């Protein structure tokens, strides 16, 4: 089975059998052909395969006739910010995000810095499959230039969406684990800007990953251990391209990544009202936040593309996912772990509360996430089967199926980044959660 997964969340695969230089070259050619002209910013997250993939992408984009700006190791959200500011006309981030170190992906970013929407994406995929790439003549090819971005401007702008003065006065001490990813290049500037005392672990770039780069309690053991040993205010776990964030309390308790979005929304919505865009796979905690500020929560398909483009379409300012992802439209069209950190620190500073106090104010839910590897066609058949079975309950069918119950819910859907069936369920008590799990397992085993 191939390990290349092509979707709006990127062209993603295990290197080299799924994603390799040839695939990267063709996708970059297709993307550049689609763009036709302009300046393309390209960054990597520092993982080993990024070097060869980036050289393939430079050549491909230049050959179509677009100028290439080589940003080297940089978080995807910073590239998205730079595109939003008009520095580049589009972008390409080479990052495996939350995937293990032997994976990588090409993320395609449109003229606003957002992931492609489905129309844009299909256009690029059609060009890719037809291999109808534009070819510039020798005197029309794009230049390939190294570019050092202005990180100061990025932080300055971020400071406008939080109470930077309060954060600086608080003089927080934090532990950050960027998991050898691109977040490492920004940590010192971020700490300096917000007057943080920062203790970093796993901040070398690339190499063997100390743990999977998915920010969640399972991967937080090192950072949590540090927090238990020293008296710091919070811990932060980033994925490879600093788009996702999970939190660790001052006591060393690793929080579910589901907490990031509701806490960030609490911080932002106090300043400006906005509806909240999230996905069918995200915790109910966000409804609590929505009710508190009297704003609607709109649930859409999973993935940065659907969330950001729904924000665009509805005029919502804030959105995100239970994966630890937050986007603020006025800031950039992407999930940004640094902005998310700033929101959390802002909330702690203004409320003068610890992270564990802030989280205890959110309703307590019990969640379980499971995934099952199976052939794609079987995944689709199973989901169709569930849609029939649960139709009396009027489920949400935006992405797979989401069934709402009084004291819990579950979502079952095909993953867009891996060849797996994803199951997420949440309940008010462990008992209810267990019942949901039994119900789903029964459906799974009886379906063959």
């Amino acid at each position: 089975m191939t390990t290349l997964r092509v979707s709006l969340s990127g062209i993603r695969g295990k290197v080299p059998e799924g994603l390799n230089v040839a695939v990267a070259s063709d996708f970059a050619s297709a993307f550049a052909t689609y763009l036709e002209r302009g300046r393309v910013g390209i960054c990597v997250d520092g993982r080993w395969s990024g070097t060869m993939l980036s050289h393939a992408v430079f050549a491909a984009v230049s050959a179509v006739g677009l100028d290439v700006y080589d940003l080297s190791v940089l978080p995807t959200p910073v590239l998205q910010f730079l595109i939003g500011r008009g520095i580049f006309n589009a972008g390409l981030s080479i990052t495996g995000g939350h995937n293990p170190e032997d994976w990588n992906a090409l993320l395609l970013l449109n003229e606003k810095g957002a992931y492609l929407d489905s129309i844009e994406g299909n256009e690029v995929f059609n060009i890719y499959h037809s291999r109808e790439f534009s070819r510039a003549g020798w005197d029309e090819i794009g230049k390939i230039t190294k570019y050092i971005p202005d990180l100061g401007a990025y932080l300055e702008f971020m400071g406008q969406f939080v109470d930077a003065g309060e954060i600086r006065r608080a003089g927080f001490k934090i532990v950050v684990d960027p998991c050898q990813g691109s977040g490492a290049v920004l940590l010192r500037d971020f700490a300096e800007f917000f007057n943080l005392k920062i203790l970093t672990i796993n901040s070398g770039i690339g190499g063997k990953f100390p743990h999977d780069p998915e920010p969640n309690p399972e991967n937080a053991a090192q950072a949590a251990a540090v927090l238990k040993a020293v008296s710091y205010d919070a811990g932060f776990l980033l994925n490879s391209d600093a788009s996702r964030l999970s939190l660790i309390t001052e006591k060393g308790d690793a929080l579910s990544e589901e907490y990031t979005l509701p806490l960030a929304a609490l911080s932002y919505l106090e300043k400006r009202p906005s509806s909240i865009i999230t996905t069918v796979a995200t915790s109910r905690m966000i409804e609590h936040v929505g009710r508190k500020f009297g704003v609607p929560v709109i649930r859409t398909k999973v993935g940065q593309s659907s969330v950001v483009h729904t924000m665009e379409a509805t005029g919502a300012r804030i959105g995100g996912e239970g994966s630890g992802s937050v986007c603020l439209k006025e800031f950039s069209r992407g999930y940004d772990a640094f902005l998310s950190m700033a929101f959390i620190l802002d909330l702690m500073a203004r409320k003068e509360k610890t992270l564990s106090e802030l989280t205890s104010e959110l309703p307590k839910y019990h969640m379980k996430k499971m995934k099952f590897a199976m052939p794609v066609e079987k995944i689709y058949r199973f989901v169709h089967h569930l849609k029939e079975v649960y139709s009396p309950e009027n489920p949400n069918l935006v992405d797979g199926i989401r069934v709402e119950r009084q004291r819990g819910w579950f979502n079952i859907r095909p993953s867009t980044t891996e060849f797996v069936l994803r199951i997420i369920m949440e309940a008010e008590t462990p008992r209810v959660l267990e019942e949901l799990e039994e119900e789903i397992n029964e459906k799974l085993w009886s379906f063959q």
Partner: protein
Amino acid sequence: MRRPSDLKISISGIRGKIGRSFTPSLVLSFSEAFATYLGGGKIAVATDTRPTRDLVKHAVFAGLLSCGATPVDAGILPIPSFQIYVKDTRARGGIAITASHNPVEWNALKLVRRGGFFPFSYQAEEILDIYHQGRFKRVPYFSSEPRIDRDAFRFHKRRLLRFADIEAIKKRRPKVVVDACNGAASPYVAEFLEALGCEVVAINTDVDSPFPHPPEPVPENLTQLSEAVKKYGADIGFAQDADADRLAAVDETGTPIGEEYTLALAVKYYLENKGKSPVVVNLSTSRAVEDVAREAGVSFFRAKVGEINVVEEMLRRGAKIGGEGNGGIIAAEVHPCRDSFSGMVLLLEFLSKSGKTLSELASELPRYFMIKDKIEVSMKDGIRIVEHFKEASHGGKLNLMDGIRIDYPDYWLHLRPSNTEPVLRLIVEARSERTAREIFEKIREEILRLKEE
């Protein structure tokens, strides 16, 4: 007939036009094939000065890294300097990004094997086989960045300065105009000639400007150099091609001596002053070199066209001097490869030691008249036509090593399908211009007639 593709995949490497056939994915795959063949390791990469050099270089880097090789970026470098670089840095191989004397819209990859030689034909065929099958050995876990060497010319320079009789040149202090054609020699040639003890005027040494004229060092491209030689009252003018393997010379009156005579002069000087040695040239090279060798009483051999064939024959015969009539001088002591720098050293020494002018030296050579041209013919027709001539060589001495060469007492001709383009190359050389023209026209008409059959 369908227009022949401009893409050329052959044992000389892979070549095509940017924006048409020479695509990044092609360059990638070819580099992957090469890295697969070598099994990874250190592989040097250099370019000439074409505006598309960076694009191609990044694709090469990607392909090499993909199959576990570590690229070393040797920057802009003449091809002989690059071959020496591969040898002296003990790299496992090299890829030179240069389309040599071809116009600017072309680019190409030339493969260099360990020791600084072009691949033997069987090796090139093995690499091509891997390329055609697309079975690349992509590595699952490999962490490497291209390394950059900012002074990659030093190895070649060191060897040249050891080879040259600097004292002799310094004594004469010849005034030299050199035209680097904004090519790969541009960053180095002026400084090198000064180190030899020359007074130097260098023209066209801007690597970021387009080729000022077609980069093949043949008389029609030497007008700017001729004028400069006259203007500065120089003793000699040199023209290098874009990758600086070939050399043409202009005498003190501004007259090109003809690229065939560059080699003849270099060989003559070498045999008279540097030492006796067998001489090896290719089948297309002027008889003047053969005469020079005979005069010096050394043995003389001809090899198939293609630098590696001449080099192999030189190594087999223990020849220290040889080359190709198109201005490709090979001085094995520097390195067995075509090298415009070695050629310059030999000609400058000749001027300095003889005390004569270049026009005097050239006039002492046996005179022949040569016509070279190419006739557009598809590969298949080309082979058929050459076969026909094999049967129709009345009374001449036949050599079938490479296409067909027929030697008669007063003239000879060489007809062969090109390795790099869908053309037949025809060369006729005779004692008189009239004979040469008559024979050439006769054969050309015959070819055109056969093509229509």
